[in-house]
């Protein structure tokens, strides 16, 4: 009697496990960094991939978009998202290289794999053992390379000489600091170009505009500006346009928002480095799903790097380029 009971229970367990595996819909959560077109576009890409894989395979759950950039805005929403208790995998853009380590580690310890997208923890090298090397992967732009490309592009526009200014945003965020490092590195190749200043706007566009306006006043012979993300770039553009210096001061920008694309078309911005947020979102869902479906055995590359696209006035209207414009 007892033995038969055990047999029946084993059979039920095996069946249940079989059904469980076959019918499992994985819940993949996305926690964005800030409410802006870059992350809206990333969500769109992630949604498209989830739909492609099938609603019975993946359910994408998107956290609350923080209104400002920083751990104080992001962490409560992240905790609220994870308190649901039914998340199988999380991909998120940590808003600080340091402050998000204990938060994400807590969920990793509970058995939830983490992918960092667009920004990373620590120095982003998850291959060597450290207190921040637990994420499955970093999926995002090679920001340093992008910074070098911007420096080179500005140099071409300026004939390799002149004073340039860098409008940055959050100094504790990996992505934008890599852009600054790349930009500085790139400028080294042009000894007649001089970086006259760097300011940080903390993702507040009005601050960026005021900082660039001040830089224009301090340096009447300023030849170029680089705005490193949505807010810095839009602020830099607004300052140069308001000063009536469009075309005189070259404006290199990063992140292809509709605002910047329009500005490029009318000649107020000179080029835009567009990341591929939709592809990042899509890659996160794709790798995340395949990892979960493999029973967490699949080896995921520690770094996945989608490329970028440089908009200039020559290609901004080409049909091919339109896919790289960010949209909600």
């Amino acid at each position, binding site marked *: 009697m007892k033995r038969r009971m055990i047999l029946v229970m084993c059979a039920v367990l095996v069946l249940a496990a079989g059904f469980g595996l076959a019918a499992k819909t994985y819940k993949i959560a996305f926690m964005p960094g800030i409410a802006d077109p870059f992350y809206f576009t990333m969500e769109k890409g992630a949604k498209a991939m989830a739909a492609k894989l099938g609603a019975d395979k993946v359910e994408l*759950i998107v956290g*609350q978009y923080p209104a400002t950039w920083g751990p104080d805005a992001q962490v409560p929403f992240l905790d609220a998202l994870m*308190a649901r208790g039914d998340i199988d995998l999380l991909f998120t853009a940590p808003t*600080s290289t*340091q402050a998000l380590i204990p938060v994400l580690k807590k969920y990793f310890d509970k*058995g939830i794999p983490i992918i960092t997208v667009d920004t990373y923890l620590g120095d982003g090298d998850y291959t060597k053992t450290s207190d921040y090397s637990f994420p499955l992967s970093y999926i995002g732009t090679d920001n340093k390379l992008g910074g070098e490309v911007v420096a080179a592009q500005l140099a071409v526009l300026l004939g390799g000489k002149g004073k340039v200014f860098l409008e940055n945003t*959050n*100094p504790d965020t990996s992505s934008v600091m890599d852009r600054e490092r790349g930009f500085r590195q790139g400028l080294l190749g042009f000894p007649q170009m001089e970086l006259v200043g760097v300011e*940080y706007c903390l993702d507040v566009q009005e601050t960026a505009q005021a900082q660039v306006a001040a830089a224009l006043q301090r340096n009447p012979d300023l030849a170029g500006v680089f705005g490193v993300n949505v807010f810095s770039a839009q602020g830099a553009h607004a300052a140069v346009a308001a000063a009536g210096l469009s075309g005189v001061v070259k404006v290199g920008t990063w992140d292809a928002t509709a605002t910047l694309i329009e500005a490029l078309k009318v000649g107020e911005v000179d080029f835009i480095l567009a990341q591929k947020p939709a592809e990042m979102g899509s890659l996160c869902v794709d790798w995340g799903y395949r990892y979960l479906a493999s029973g967490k055995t699949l080896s995921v590359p520690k770094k996945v790097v989608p490329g970028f696209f440089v908009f200039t006035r020559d290609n901004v209207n080409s049909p091919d380029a339109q896919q790289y414009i960010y949209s909600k």
Partner: protein
Amino acid sequence: MNPRFRSVFIRVMRRWVLIFLGFEVLAFSLLGTNFFSLDTLQNILVSSTIVLLLAVGETFVIITGGIDLSVGFMVGFTGVVCAKIMVTLQAAGTTQAMAIAAGIAAALLVGLLPGFINGFLVAHLKVPPFIATFGMYGIAYGCAEIICNNVPIHDLPSAVGPIGHGFLFFWLPGKMFRVFVEPTGLSSVDFQHLITIIPNLSALALVFVLVFGFILAKTRFGRHTYAIGGNIDAAERAGIDVKRHLVKVYMISSFFASLAGVCYVLRYITGRAPAGSAQVLDAVVAVVIGGASLYGGKGSVSGTFVGAMVLTTLVLGLANLALPTYYAYIAVGCILIFAVLIDQFSPELVHKED
């Protein structure tokens, strides 16, 4: 109205905030995903830390008939001081424990000064509280930006995170129970079943909330606070040193703001000048919906606690439903106006008829 029904009605309405909180929890539990859980409860507690601390300090000030607007940027100011000292000492080669302790102590000490100045301006120089503390609001922000040189302070000692995100108790049912020290070397299965109870920051906040709740409700200091808010002239005639008392009250408020600043640093592992500025309004709202009157003389720490929970539950509940936060702003605005209307038109509903 039937007098018996009326007395029941009044008794129920007097607790409308508590009923509203219960309604919130019920609604989000039914509509949301796994909202009614230990994790969510603790998340609400720890997320409310800053608003709660600001609101408890603010309760004292509002009961005296004043208001302290400086507390918002005081969080940023003391947070920046705290973080800066930690980073500087760490760079100078002291131990992490030393750097962290010194940062916290310095923030709490420095935080008393703006409170003293606020109190002095209000009590001795008769500057309206609104203006005095609004001025301090700007000064605290400016000083914070100067100290942190306009950028958030980062690269704090690595022990800060584990403190700010730690818990008092770790419980693995049937296997182990630990206090304060997070167990290491657990298998991944054990880790998933580890139950963490009471976030450190909530414990810290609750200790101070309880102590000062007691002071307000049960001590002479508390009675004097109510007396000043009820009728300042009468309080003076009754022999209360009103000026001295007001200075102390504003120092209590700024002390709580400094505690909030320290909690900010421990949880977010950074010092930012604008930290907390968004929480001033929430703090005042928590105090008012907790039953305090902006005209002074009424209010309690327990009411303020419920008020802070109402706000945080609302924000995190909406997040659980994945609804945008701006609904929370509308809801908070409505609740605030409702609370003031109740206070205005039927004070007997909110406060005991004595």
